[in-house]
C-alpha cells in the first residue's frame, strides 16, 4: 500500500525542471551533494536558475559546474568561499547573490516545509542581513523576522532510500538535505542505494517518504573530498 516514488533514472527524476525556476540543492561543501542531478542539469541546459544551496561548489565540481555554464542567475547561500568563478561572477555583477546566515538558511528551509511562514531569530541583527526586516525584542534581546524559503524543486542526496521515498543519510552528509527535502514543491532524492521496501528500519529513517516525490539510485558517485586532512598512521 506504500506509495511508489521510484523513477527509472536521473532524466525522469529531473523532468519538469525549467529555466527560471528556483531550486534547492542539498549538501555542505561537496559533502552530500546530488551529483547525478547536477550533471543532468548541466546536460539539460536549463538556465536563469535561482539556486538555494549552502555553498556553491568548487570551480569544477558541484554547483561550480552550473556556474561555469552561466546557468545560475541568483545564488542564495551562506558561504561561497571556495569558488573563484563564483567570486568573479559576483563581483562583476553577472551573478546575483543573497548571503544568509547558515542557521537562518537551514531554519528557513525547514519552516517552508513545516508550514511556518516566519519566525524570529537573533542571527544577523545589526548587520547587513537585517536590512528592512522587522526587529523585535524578546527577553531584552533583539531578533529579526525571517520568512520561509520555498523552491519549485528540492534536490537532495541520501545514502539509502526506498521506493516510498524514505531516506537515510550518512554522517555529516546529512546537513541541509533533510530540510530541503521538506521544502520543495517537488522533491527529488538521489540515493547511493535504493533498497527494497520494508528493508529500512522505520525507527532509523531521517526523512519520511511523505516529503519526497521522486527517488532514484544514482549511477555513480565521485564523492570528491575538498580538504583531505589526515594524520600519519599510528
Amino acid at each position, binding site marked *: 500500500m506504500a506509495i511508489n516514488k521510484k523513477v527509472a533514472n536521473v532524466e525522469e527524476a529531473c523532468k519538469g525542471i525549467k529555466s527560471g525556476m528556483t531550486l534547492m540543492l542539498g549538501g555542505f561543501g561537496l559533502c552530500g551533494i546530488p551529483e547525478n542531478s547536477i550533471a543532468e542539469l548541466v546536460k539539460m541546459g536549463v538556465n536563469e536558475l535561482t539556486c538555494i544551496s549552502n555553498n556553491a561548489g568548487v570551480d569544477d565540481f558541484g554547483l561550480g559546474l552550473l556556474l561555469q555554464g552561466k546557468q545560475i542567475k541568483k545564488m542564495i547561500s551562506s558561504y561561497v568561499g571556495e569558488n573563484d568563478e563564483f567570486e568573479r561572477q559576483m563581483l562583476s555583477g553577472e551573478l546575483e547573490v543573497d548571503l544568509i*546566515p547558515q*542557521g537562518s538558511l537551514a531554519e528557513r528551509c525547514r519552516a517552508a516545509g513545516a508550514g511556518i511562514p516566519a519566525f524570529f531569530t537573533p542571527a544577523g541583527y545589526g548587520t547587513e542581513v537585517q536590512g528592512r526586516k522587522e526587529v523585535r525584542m524578546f527577553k531584552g534581546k533583539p531578533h529579526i523576522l525571517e520568512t520561509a524559503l520555498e523552491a519549485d524543486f528540492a534536490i537532495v542526496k541520501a545514502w539509502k532510500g526506498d521506493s516510498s521515498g524514505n531516506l537515510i543519510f550518512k554522517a555529516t552528509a546529512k546537513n541541509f538535505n533533510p530540510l530541503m527535502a521538506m521544502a520543495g514543491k517537488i522533491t527529488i532524492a538521489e540515493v547511493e542505494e535504493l533498497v527494497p521496501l520494508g528493508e529500512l528500519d522505520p525507527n532509523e529513517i531521517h526523512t519520511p517518504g511523505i516529503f519526497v516525490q521522486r527517488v532514484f539510485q544514482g549511477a555513480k558517485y565521485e564523492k570528491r573530498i575538498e580538504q583531505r586532512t589526515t594524520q600519519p598512521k599510528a
Partner: protein
Amino acid sequence: MLDKNGIAKRIAQELQHGYYVNLGIGIPTLVANYIPEGIEVEFQSENGILGMGPFPEEGDEDADLINAGKQTITAMPGAAYFDSATSFAMIRGRHVQLTVLGAMEIAQNGDIANWKIPGRMVKGMGGAMDLVASAENIIVAMMHTNKRGESKLLEKCSLPLTGVGCVKKVVTNLAVMEIRDNGFYLVERAPGVSIDEIVDATDGRLIVPGDNIPEMEI
C-alpha cells in the same frame, strides 16, 4: 609574543569541564590539540557533528565525514550526527557553551567583523552570524594586527559587521583582553611582550589596570 599554536594553547585554558565547544576555522581549530588534562569537553561542528575527533589516519578519510572547514575528520565514541537545523538549534538555543572564532576586526564595544570586504572579498558569513548572535561566551582568536601591520582592535569596525556587541574576550599573539566598559580591558600579556607594545598595536581604547599586568602562563 605567541604564534598561532600559542594563541590556541592559551584559549584552551578557558575550557571548562562539561563544555560543548564550537571552534571556527583557522587558529580556533588548533584549540582542540590542547585540552587540559582531566576535563571532558565535546566539540560541535556546525555542519552536523557532536563529538568531533582528530583527522583520520591516512587512507581512512571518509568524504561523508567532514567538519565545517570541509576537512576530513573522525568521530569520537559517543558522537552524534544531525541536520543543519538541529545543529543551529544547539547554537541558537545556547546548548553550546563556548564559541571560538577568528575575526578581521573587533571593536571596543564587542562588535565583530569577519565575513566580508566590500568589493574585494565576499566569502559569506557561514554560521558565524548565528554563532555570535547566540553564544553566551565568545572568544576571538586572532593576530593583533593584520598583514599590513594595522591594528585589528578598533574603536569601531570599518568592515560590515558579523555581530553587535557580542565578543566577550580576545586572545591575540600579544595579549588577552576582555571587553569591558566600552574598551579592551587588558588581562594578560603574552610572554615577553610589554604593555607599551600592546598599547602601540591597539587602535581602540585599551584599558590598562595598573602596571602589573601578569604574563600568560602557557
